[in-house]
């Protein structure tokens, strides 16, 4: 059973921001919004780490649960998508998201947030695959072509892994055993196993 996930190997991420840049470029994400970011913790201190983060496409996704207009929905491979036609910019998903993924253009008058935008796992939205309308609203649909998200496929150090959760988990574990250290899969418990006790 395939379940698509993201895993960022913090020991390999060099904060080059290629993932963030290529994402903005591939999907022509408007000014003021960013679907993938790189966060650096303990900057300048021993134990400094950089981790790329975007929507993690959570299991039992809180954004889907709070959305008042059925804008957010999940696919059978785990990807959380959104329908820009029904979004009203209420911001509930933004308060419920454990990873700060939802973005708002803030372009309209009277403080309205406009329609939410977030990482689509390069899987577009409810429009017809590869259509102009889909590209304008959601960006490129790479999943429809059998490809994985560009942020991970472009990663020069292969720090950011995307694809079937079990497979990338295996790749990561083998890597950790080989080099002898690893800080673990960041965000996985919050995103994928919220019911498990530590």
């Amino acid at each position, binding site marked *: *059973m*395939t379940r698509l996930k993201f895993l960022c190997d913090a020991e390999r991420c060099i904060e080059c*921001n290629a993932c*963030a840049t290529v994402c903005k470029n591939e999907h022509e994400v408007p000014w003021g*919004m*960013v679907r993938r*970011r*790189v*966060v*650096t*913790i303990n900057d300048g201190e021993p134990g400094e780490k950089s*981790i790329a*983060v975007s929507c993690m496409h959570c299991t*039992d*996704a*809180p*954004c*889907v*649960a709070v959305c*008042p*207009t*059925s804008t957010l*929905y*999940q*696919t*059978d491979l785990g990807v959380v*998508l959104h329908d820009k036609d*029904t979004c009203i910019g*209420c*911001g*509930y998903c933004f*308060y*419920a998201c454990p*990873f*700060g993924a939802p973005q708002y253009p803030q372009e309209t008058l009277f*403080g309205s*947030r406009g329609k939410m935008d977030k990482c689509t796992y390069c*899987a577009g939205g*409810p429009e017809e*695959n590869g259509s102009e309308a889909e590209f304008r609203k959601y960006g490129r649909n790479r*999943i429809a*072509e*059998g490809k994985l998200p560009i942020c991970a496929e472009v990663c020069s150090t292969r720090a950011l*892994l*995307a*694809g*079937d959760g079990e*497979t*990338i*988990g295996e*790749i990561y*574990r083998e890597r950790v055993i080989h080099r002898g250290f*690893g800080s*673990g899969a*960041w*965000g996985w418990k*919050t995103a994928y*196993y919220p*019911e498990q006790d*530590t």
Partner: protein
Amino acid sequence: MTDQTPVVRGRDFTGYRIGGAIAALLLLVAMVWQVVALFDGETVTVPESHWRVSAAQGDYGAEVIAGEVLEARTRFMDERFRTGPSPGAEAPELARGDRYFLIEERMEAEGRDLTRAWLTADARALEMSRPSERVIGISSLPYPNAELFERPEGRDWRFGLADFITHLGAIAILGFSLLLALILALRGRVPIAKGRSGRTVKRFNFLERANHWMTASSFIMLALTGIVIAYGDTLIRIPFGEEAQGTLALWSSWTHALFFPPFTLGLFVMILLWTWRNLPSRLDLAWLARAGGFFSDDPDNPPARKFNAGQKLIFWSAVLGGVAMIATGVTLMFPYFWADLEVMGWVMLVHATLATLLIAIFIGHIYIGTVGMQGAIWAMWGGKVDRNWAEEHHVLWLKELETRGATARGG
């Protein structure tokens, strides 16, 4: 017949009482449904969409499932010497991205089992997963909140809103309405016990009434649009479908913002007009101790000036609740202006909680001002009330008017 014997009794309003009974029955059904929903255990989100494979040429894609194509592609994430795209390395045929196309369509099957399976972690996955914790660093990207990596409290916020406040709020609104409907059915209206005198006294001037109705209609529109946003998933999607829900919610989100200025203006004028007469006094304790004489038909109600303790409570709910709603609402309109994401989450929960409470309270206000009490509506509608009504509910105010000679114009 003494002065104290009521001429009109609450239980004589048969039509109103039947209406109250019917309303009570309907509200009871809705209430039971809400209570069941609150304790209905399983609230996980489920997949609604399915990917299938179609081939670029011919129709031999059906034998491949979408997951296989992406799993093959995932092998490219492995070390370069093992899989492509380096020359000489083996590239899985499915993974080339030129032969199979994945199509997303609405899922027919129930996705609950998938969510349950995903939630079950195997030991290896659990071992490598870092514990849930708040992680905030720095980011070189110039966006608000870009430094956030993880905040597990997002999931708690979801339970607070989706599984707690919406259900409890609905129960508060339905429960209070049910109580009022039962009171109407059993007790009837609060009558003008001595009957109408045919003479009236002026209670509210034009400015007071116009301002009241501006504020009231704004409040009702804010409440209705808020209800569409908070409860649209139940009230609109189930009977009318997703498209109607989306359209109505979009209109509601704009209308909600549109009625905020008149509501704010009305509320501040109300504060200027009525605060002085709504300051608490010793009389209020005596009035509250007897519940304002609400449950008896005797004309002998506890004495009150222009506003009795019940009306004062409504005034202060409107003022304090309204100011809090405006403050939280404006905060939510301008993300990051003074509040960060965590504070905004709490502000949103306060806004939702207060909203449901205020709706419940003002259903009570509307009740007592219309069907709940004979003659009350004329105070705010035409501005003049029956003399006997004034004497029964605001005897000190009536005396005050009489000493000023202000009642001469009435009737």
